[in-house]
């Protein structure tokens, strides 16, 4: 946290955004803001941030290890100069208004000085009652760090569990323990508030039928994650709690506590449980044993997200996960074996069935805890009937109180990608109450000028941390100091205690100056976490930041070899040898920079593109809004009402007016993109515009793709052959524009999944279930006597849409299920439309004559357009032709090419509200780039020595990014602005004409020499 203090002055010159809650959503929002040079205060009641995601084992759909994907995300945190992280802190009071809030924050005592704690774990070692964080399975230790990459990287103490505080104080060599730590209260000025406190997971113990809490082998989904996790109670072995034996048969029960009307149930759908149950089942088979039988009991499989249906198909077809459509009513435990038997009924059969399992996982959903309700009251925001934050229908991150925004599960149940999208959207909205980014000057680094060390003989200073006992307790620091001091060119060699503490940093800085050092070696912990810190120290001391080498004495030596002190000392010598030899060959390097172009190109003038354009324009960004048709509006212009009953038309007209009138937005209709070049931050895109296709080039720093999707019109169920067979979109218009015609109807049939979830378009279109229910409810509102039949495969009214589904059932809308291999049949006889369908429950085929047949056709990707653009912009697409984001979980609006963002239905099918949210998110993410005046390209780039180059083309062919080319002078040229720094070309070059800066061959050779005692 040293850095935060150093840069405290940065914070005084502007108000902050207060982000409440340090889960992935809060972290994302805070990082987005900090990256766009906005000051942020991030508070969390916990000891360290990370929230729910850090407890998960792996995440779908890639089944990646979460820790790996989340940890770089978290450590980013400490680098942000605009970010003030306050763990164990709550909001007490909020006064004032938008742009000018005063928030009173209360921080609980941690009893550990974060600045001093080095996370050595000594305290933990001596109080080892429970090391791991394993909710529900292990008690919490008195001192705790939740997981290896915790942020802040410091322990905390639960004073209630401490018996002898002096003993504890003694073991801490860093003297970080503060026994008399007290609660602290501060008031900060905030322009906006972002609420991202998430929700709790439902505790099923109060349900008596499933035995949760009583039967050892009944666990919740989260407990199952912990059991599978490598950092969990069984070190990553999947075993039953009762006998620690691997299970052979595991069952999942869905919707435990959700979608219910019984005691303790909530009526809404928690949205995420279907996917996590599928993931847990797949991971069980993938990682543990193919032979473990996995069964999921479910009501509707709600795999409505992007490519989620493919995941479901994989679970069923590739992994053989068994799916039973049933809601079991009880679990009984065998007292001896602790096996479990589940009793359940299936629709097709009269009798109930009973089946035995080794383990049962209860898929529990989200609940808003009392603490959140309380917090909402303090924030002065309204909650909806389910106690989630009530938000604007056309801006789901905006609460009832201006200036207060929400994201993540506290807004509605959702999964990680959607939380990330909302977080970026909330950050973007929050920033709009601050001065526009274009007007915020970039803080100048007040570093002294770099000293020119060329021509100087190496003068190396070696500074070795003992890191308390972490290093010094295993190896003799004095001996290392002595060893290092005897190496050639080393003029200073000394121990510095905790090298990363502010005292030591000051000492090193002074030593560099007084001894005129020109190279520095730090013996301490991993360069992964501390290199930046010491690089900054060098800059402060007037040295180029690439003249420091960090020797990993702790993480890769004393920690790993604590039981072998002799060997560890020997290895420490060798590692120091590597570092000292290496640093002698290091050279001052310049980070490559280019000025950033601060214009944005938004492709697509639908609701998404317009929202994003407007949001950016409001921040002073010049926006080119390129639309291929003659007018703005896109698909949303043909929608009349949302399921919540809001009129879309007036909203769209206002949006179009705002966009057209905005001085920072240049609307280019009838425009086609034809070429593209440049690097992130400096793109050049050619368009043909206007009726005569005039060519022009646009210069821009970022690109937001919002090209949308197409309404699907498959050749199915007689669509297009009869006036009464239409799509839901057409029905929506008819209801609004011609209610008389509706009134004249007696029966209406709707068929779901038309052209979706089928082999040639396997994914779910997500919007059709709610669209059908929306239209059904509106028809019922016109005339409750009209009979409505909805033929469906699974009803996917996720989140609060479930309320409307229930209402439709209450209003006697008939839901009839069919399966993919037994689809309904449509016949037209005597100009009358009839639908034939097998009723599963009745067990026979029924005929429904209908006045109107509405087909839920959903959306389909605009293959032609996304293909064209993906080729020009070099962007990947999914197998069903939507754009593919960089990381489906953590970077859902960023594309793999930096500077490109996607939003709306060009990403995947979604509702207007979801598109708007993503538009704000994309605008927010774009600002993180646009906020920069310079593009820093780093220093590790390949450099060609033209005099050695044989122009053999090896680099041209080997580069994974196609950067090198043979220039006019006949040798290879590598644009440092484009080079990614992997070094493949340098390794392959047969003439050894290419060097990767910061990793030059002579430096690697020097390191080998250092290791083997030779002197280079």
């Amino acid at each position, binding site marked *: 946290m040293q850095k935060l203090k150093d840069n405290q002055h940065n914070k005084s010159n502007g108000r902050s955004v207060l982000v409440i809650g340090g889960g992935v959503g809060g972290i994302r929002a805070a990082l987005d803001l900090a990256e766009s040079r906005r000051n942020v205060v991030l508070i969390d009641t916990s000891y360290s941030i990370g929230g729910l995601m850090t407890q998960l084992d792996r995440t779908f759909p890639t089944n990646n*290890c979460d*820790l*790996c994907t989340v*940890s770089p995300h978290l450590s980013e945190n400490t680098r942000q100069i605009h970010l003030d992280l306050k763990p164990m802190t709550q909001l007490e009071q909020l006064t004032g208004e938008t742009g000018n809030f005063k928030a009173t924050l209360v921080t609980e005592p941690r009893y550990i000085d974060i600045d001093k704690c080095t996370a050595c774990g000594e305290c933990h070692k001596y109080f080892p009652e429970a090391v791991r964080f394993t909710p529900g399975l292990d008690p919490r230790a008195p001192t705790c760090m939740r997981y*290896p990459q915790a942020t802040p990287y410091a322990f905390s103490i639960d004073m209630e569990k401490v018996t002898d505080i002096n003993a504890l104080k003694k073991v801490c060599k860093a003297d970080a323990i503060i026994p008399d730590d007290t609660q602290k209260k501060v008031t900060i000025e905030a322009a906006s508030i972002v609420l991202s406190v998430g929700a709790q997971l439902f505790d099923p113990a109060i349900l008596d039928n499933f035995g949760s809490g009583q039967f050892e082998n009944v666990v919740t989904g989260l407990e199952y994650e912990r059991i599978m996790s*490598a950092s969990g109670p069984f070190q990553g072995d999947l075993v039953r709690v009762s006998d620690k034996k691997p299970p052979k048969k595991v069952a999942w029960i869905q919707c435990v506590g959700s979608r219910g009307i019984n005691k303790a149930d909530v009526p809404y759908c928690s949205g995420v449980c279907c996917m996590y149950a599928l993931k847990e089942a797949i991971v069980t088979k993938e990682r543990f044993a193919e032979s473990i039988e996995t069964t999921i009991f479910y009501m509707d499989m709600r795999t409505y997200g992007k490519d989620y249906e493919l995941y479901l198909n994989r679970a069923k077809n590739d992994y053989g996960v068994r799916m039973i459509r049933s809601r079991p009513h009880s679990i009984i435990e065998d007292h001896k074996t602790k096996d479990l038997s589940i009793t359940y009924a299936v629709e097709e059969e009269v009798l109930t069935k009973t089946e035995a399992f080794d383990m049962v996982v209860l898929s529990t959903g989200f609940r808003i805890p009392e603490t959140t309700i309380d917090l909402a009251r303090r924030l002065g925001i309204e909650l909806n009937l389910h106690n989630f934050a009530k938000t604007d229908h056309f801006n789901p991150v905006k609460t009832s109180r201006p200036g207060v925004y929400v994201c993540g599960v506290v807004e509605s149940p959702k999964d990680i990608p959607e939380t990330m999208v909302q977080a970026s959207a909330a950050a973007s909205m929050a920033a709009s109450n601050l001065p526009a980014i274009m007007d915020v000057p970039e803080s100048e680094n007040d570093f002294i000028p770099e000293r020119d060390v060329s021509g100087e003989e190496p003068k190396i200073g070696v500074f070795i941390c003992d890191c308390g006992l972490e290093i010094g307790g295993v190896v003799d620091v004095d001996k290392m100091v002595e060893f290092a001091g005897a190496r050639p060119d080393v003029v200073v060699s000394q121990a510095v205690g905790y090298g990363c503490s502010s005292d030591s940093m000051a000492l090193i800085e002074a030593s560099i100056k007084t001894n005129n050092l020109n190279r520095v070696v730090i013996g301490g912990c*991993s*360069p*992964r976490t501390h290199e930046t810190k010491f690089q900054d120290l060098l800059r402060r001391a007037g040295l180029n930041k690439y003249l420091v080498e960090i020797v*990993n004495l*702790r*993480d*890769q*030596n004393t*920690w*790993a*070899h*604590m*039981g*072998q002190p002799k*060997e*560890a000392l*020997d*290895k420490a010598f*060798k*590692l120091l040898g*590597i570092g000292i030899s290496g640093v002698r060959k290091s050279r001052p390097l310049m980070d490559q920079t280019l000025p950033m172009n601060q214009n944005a190109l938004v492709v697509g003038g639908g609701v998404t593109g317009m929202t994003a354009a407007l949001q950016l324009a409001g921040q002073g960004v010049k926006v080119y809004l390129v639309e291929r048709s003659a007018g703005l509006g896109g698909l949303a212009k043909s929608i009349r009402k949302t399921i919540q009953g809001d009129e879309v038309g007036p909203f769209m007209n206002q949006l179009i007016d705002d966009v057209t009138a905005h001085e920072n937005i240049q609307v280019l209709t009838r425009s086609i993109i034809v070429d593209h070049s440049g690097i992130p931050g400096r793109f050049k895109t050619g368009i043909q515009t206007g009726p005569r296709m005039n060519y022009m080039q646009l210069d821009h720093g970022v690109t937001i793709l919002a090209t949308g999707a197409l309404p699907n019109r498959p050749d199915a169920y007689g669509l297009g052959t009869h006036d009464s067979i239409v799509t839901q979109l057409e029905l929506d218009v008819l209801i609004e524009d011609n209610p008389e015609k509706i009134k004249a109807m007696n029966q209406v049939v709707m068929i779901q999944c038309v052209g979706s979830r089928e082999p040639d378009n396997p994914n779910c279109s997500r919007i059709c279930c709610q669209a059908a229910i929306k239209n059904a409810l509106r028809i019922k509102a016109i005339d409750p006597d009209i009979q409505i039949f909805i033929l469906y495969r699974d009803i996917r009214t996720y989140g609060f849409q479930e309320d409307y589904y229930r209402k439709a059932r209450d209003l006697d809308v008939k839901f009839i299920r069919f399966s993919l291999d037994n689809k309904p049949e449509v016949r037209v006889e005597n100009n009358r439309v009839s639908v034939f369908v097998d009723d599963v429950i009745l067990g026979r085929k029924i005929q429904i004559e209908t006045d109107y047949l509405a087909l839920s056709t959903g959306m389909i990707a605009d293959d032609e357009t996304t293909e064209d653009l993906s080729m020009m912009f070099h962007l990947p697409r999914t197998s069903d032709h939507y754009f593919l984001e960089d990381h489906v979980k953590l970077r859902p609006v960023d594309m793999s090419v930096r500077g490109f963002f996607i939003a709306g239905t060009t990403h995947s099918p979604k509702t207007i509200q979801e598109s708007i949210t993503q538009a704000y998110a994309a605008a927010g993410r774009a600002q993180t780039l646009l906020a920069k005046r310079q593009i820093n390209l780093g220093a*590790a780039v390949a450099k060609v020595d033209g005099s050695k180059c044989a122009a053999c083309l090896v680099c041209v062919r*080997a580069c*994974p*990014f196609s950067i090198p080319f043979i220039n006019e002078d006949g040798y290879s040229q590598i644009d440092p602005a484009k080079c*990614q*720094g*992997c*070094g*493949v070309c*340098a*390794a*392959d070059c047969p003439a050894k004409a290419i060097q*990767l800066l910061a*990793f030059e*061959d002579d430096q*690697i*050779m020097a*390191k*080998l*020499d250092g*290791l*083997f005692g*030779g002197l280079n």
Partner: protein
Amino acid sequence: MENFEPEIVAFCCHYCAYTAADMAGSKRISYPPNVKIIRVPCTGKVDAIHIMKALEKGADGVYVAGCLEGDCHFKNGNTRAGYRVEHVQKYLEELGWETERVAMMNMSAGMGEFFARTALEFTQKIKQLGPSPIKRINIDKSQKAVG
């Protein structure tokens, strides 16, 4: 040869293997201290010559550890590194050295245990093979001198 402690160089990529090694440390998982890591941005940067030079300068074994197949941060650097390791193995074969003295490994950043296990297995293998032929001759000589 009982108490032979081999010197092993591991070229680890910053993004995966190096992080995995840190992870092993933070979990206090022990592995042989014989393994010394040299950090590279990507295993694609590791040239055959780096491996050869390591052997020449005195390593008894060298391995290159990169990201899992298909997970390279730079698309295919780890695959290319694999080819180069094979190339070095061909040289060693021609020279009559044990090709097992060099190896390619793949792991993700989170695989701390795996890092430790492979480090152990590789060290054990090199112990079985004994000192590098370069060192062996010196040992033989010194023994002869003594004898």
